[in-house]
């Protein structure tokens, strides 16, 4: 290429680069861009319905604060104490009667007993007492 040719080509290229945006805007094809994804995300599980917005104003009732009478307080405490003591008393009695922590006493079974007088359960080992004056008739028949 000659020097004359170079001198012509450089301004032409500069002109083309400068006018490139103009050519691009007027292009019949859309510019390449990232397309929207075909996959749509859906949450797993039941969809919760949104809480409806409160439309009416909340009613605020202003309670009258009355002081509790002292006699009521004393009565309540006394009733509670009585109930507690009753429970404690009942529990103690049940505990004592259940004999939970008391020891149990056992006897080893001995040799087979010699049966007496035909008795299979008892051979007549016993003790007797007289705790009062027997009637005259009874005394007479006993002797």
């Amino acid at each position, binding site marked *: 290429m000659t020097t004359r040719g170079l001198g012509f080509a450089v301004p032409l290229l500069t002109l083309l680069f400068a006018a490139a945006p103009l050519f691009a805007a007027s292009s019949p094809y859309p510019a390449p861009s990232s397309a929207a994804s075909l996959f749509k995300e859906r949450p797993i599980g039941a969809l919760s319905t949104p809480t409806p917005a409160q439309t009416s104003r909340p009613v605020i009732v202003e309670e009258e604060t009355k002081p509790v009478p002292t006699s009521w307080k004393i009565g309540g405490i006394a009733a509670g104490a009585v109930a507690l003591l009753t429970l404690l008393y009942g529990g103690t009695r049940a505990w004592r*009667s259940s*004999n939970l922590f*008391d*020891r*149990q*006493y*056992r*006897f*080893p*079974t*001995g*040799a*087979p*007993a*010699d*049966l*007496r*007088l*035909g*008795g*299979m*359960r*008892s*051979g*007549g*080992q*016993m*003790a*007797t*007492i*007289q*705790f*009062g*004056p*027997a*009637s005259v*008739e*009874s005394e007479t*028949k*006993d002797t």
Partner: protein
Amino acid sequence: MKCPACATLLPTPVPRCPQCKLSLQRLDLKFGLVPRHSRYLSDRSGALALPEMDALRKDLRLFEKKFPQILLSVLVTELPIGTKVNEYSFWMANRARFSSVEKTQNDNFDLLLVIDVVSKKAALVSGYGLEPYVSEEDLQDALQPTAAPLRAGKIADGIRACIEALTAILREASARAAKPQELELAEL
């Protein structure tokens, strides 16, 4: 051991008393059917009030908890005049089923307290199972504290006194019975 009827000593096991010919079969003929009774306390005299009976039953249950092998039954009765409480107690201890049927011979650790409000006599009978551990003297000691309350007409208090005395005596007897076993185990 003595005959419940004539108090003759019975040195050997005998089917009937050599002196008075007493046997359980003879007593069956004498007393007939076994009267209604309950496991712990039976009052055929009406001498005990219901609350007293409830309280005594609780005491007797507690006694059984302490001594699981032993059933202490109490019978308050009005025997016909002339009936010996010794004979009746011996007969009831064998014929009435206060505990289970299997509790016979040396498996029978039962105790029966009979109080006759007519003859003013009380008897305490033990089963064969208790004989090696509780003597007739022990039974007498257990019965003695009941005399004063019973004399005063306080039958419930008398029964309670007997339960307390028996508890103390049986505790000692149980400790005595356990000692030889512990020695045997120690030797092994």
